[in-house]
């Protein structure tokens, strides 16, 4: 990751891991976990390990556009570096604005070198959305717009990995009214294999697994309609949730801190978006598998779905508000209003019509 000396010596990955206290056994154990995350048989762990340690592995450039560096944070973590972090570290990340030692012209030069030397061979990781309004002047890095930079960097990559919901779908920056015209990478870049790892932030386990898949098989893993890898986004949070039994049973948290909440009941009524969100949070969890939002007692906010910020919100309601009716107008309010209007309407009409029929002498017929 950083221009750490041990990475830049010619040490092999095994030696590098050894120097950080990770034995070969530990490394293979980790590769087995990655193979399992990818839903591959255990026998692939060795193959993947060989691919990761091979000398011809491609360099990685990590571009940040309209972002908060949250995905970089997710990568770095505050806790001890995991084997995954070390492997990503070892994959010479030639350019990463937040954490590289070089700055200014030196940094741009490093990027330029990689782009020319490894043209069509490197992996581009993109974090953050790309603004397109006013020719993209809302995000400038090194005197260039994010748009022109992304076209060059992503356009010449072997594969593009869009990390985080902003890079995948535009995310928070693309929320209504989207003043900068923020877009996800796949909406701007065409003709290059692109994979999305949405999430706010993305889970580094999925990034490692995606890169390992690419190194092992030379292709990106199979994806869903939103270009999200199926191994990580193929199942709903709700269907793998440890609180699911309480959902089916009809036991719900009604208020924060109530007895149900203390007993770990389902957070559905608190606006949990688990039923509409595809992510592997319940199985891989976060921070070295310590916990994840629902386990910690808060509903899922649906951060890895397209439409997260506008249509996956509000955080604490089941459904988005009805568009065009202003804030806090729920479907229930509008719907009950419609039904009441129908009832009042027919009642008034009925009285008037009955009077008209009487006046017209209907009874005589």
């Amino acid at each position, binding site marked *: 990751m950083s221009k750490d000396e041990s990475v830049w010596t010619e040490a092999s990955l095994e030696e590098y891991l050894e120097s950080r206290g990770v034995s070969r056994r530990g490394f293979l154990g980790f590769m087995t976990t990655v193979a399992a995350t990818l839903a591959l048989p255990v026998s692939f762990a060795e193959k993947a390990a060989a691919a990761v340690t091979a000398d011809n592995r491609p360099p990685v450039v990590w571009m940040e556009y309209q972002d908060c560096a949250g995905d970089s944070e997710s990568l770095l973590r505050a806790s001890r570096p995991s084997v995954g972090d070390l492997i990503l570290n070892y994959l010479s990340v030639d350019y990463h604005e937040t954490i590289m030692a070089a700055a200014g012209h030196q940094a741009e030069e490093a990027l330029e070198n990689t782009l020319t030397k490894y043209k069509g061979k490197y992996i581009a990781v993109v974090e953050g959305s790309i603004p397109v309004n006013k020719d993209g002047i809302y995000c400038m890095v090194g005197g260039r717009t994010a748009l022109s930079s992304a076209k060059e960097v992503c356009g010449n990559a072997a594969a593009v990995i869009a990390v985080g919901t902003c890079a995948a779908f535009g995310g928070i920056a693309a929320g209504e009214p989207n003043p900068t015209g923020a877009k996800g990478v796949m909406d701007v870049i065409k003709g290059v294999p692109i994979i999305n790892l949405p999430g706010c932030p993305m889970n580094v386990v999925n990034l490692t697994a995606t890169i390992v898949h690419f190194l092992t098989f030379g292709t990106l893993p199979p994806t869903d309609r939103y270009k999200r890898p199926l191994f990580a986004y193929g199942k709903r949070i709700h269907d793998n949730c440890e609180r699911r039994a309480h959902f089916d049973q009809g036991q719900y948290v009604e208020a924060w801190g109530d007895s149900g909440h203390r007993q770990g009941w389902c957070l559905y009524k608190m606006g949990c978006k688990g039923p509409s969100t595809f992510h592997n949070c319940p199985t891989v969890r976060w921070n070295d598998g310590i916990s994840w939002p629902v386990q910690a007692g808060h509903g899922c906010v649906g951060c890895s779905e397209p439409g997260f910020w506008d249509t996956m919100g509000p955080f604490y309601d089941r459904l988005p508000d009805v568009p065009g009716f202003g804030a806090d107008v729920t479907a229930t309010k509008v719907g009950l209003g419609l039904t009441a209007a129908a009832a009042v309407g027919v009642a008034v009409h009925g009285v008037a019509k009955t009077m008209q*029929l009487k006046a017209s002498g209907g009874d005589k017929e």
Partner: protein
Amino acid sequence: MQKIKAIKVWEFPIRVIHWTNFVSVVGLSITGAYIHFPFLSTANNPDAFVMGYARAIHLSLGWLLMLGVIGRVLWGVIGNRFARLRNFLPFTYPEGRENLVDVVKYYTFASPRPKATLGHNAMASLAYLSIGLIMVFQVVSGFALYSQADPAGTAYSLFGWVFGFMNNGYLRLAHYFSMFIFASFFITHIYAMWMSDVAERNGSGGSMFNGYKYGDPDSKI
């Protein structure tokens, strides 16, 4: 008025489908409302499976509604002249357009009574067209949402395209909101049936039970 006769207007399959649709829409609304807002608490019952049953009933009735919609469209092709799909597009033929004006006059108090019709009047046809399309939307969106449980499955391959048009949040919103359109339709439908029975006296009130209405057998509509 000497030509008035009892005429079989609604054939048996039409009546069956009407009532299965009624049962499924009412059942789907009740269970759907529970799924949206689980109002029954089972706090002290360890064996409860309330949401599980609500969803099982909702999904089963979803199948019933789907069969009702398919059956109705089918009968619109092979059924009698009152059941034909053409009836749902009254603006496409002269008698329909004429009748539409007449019924609008009746509802806006410009005339006390509409001219007698045997099948659906033009306004009713448009209402049923709309509610039919909403039923189709509910079936498609419902199965699309159901299919999310297994994106590798058959249901998702059949209905997953819906998510190319509408994302998850808005699809759920529209699926839920349609329940209120059904509720409003239900109120209006009962009222219009009763009022036309009073104003026209052609037996439309009981026709969905016995199939017969009274009128001029030569009536085009």
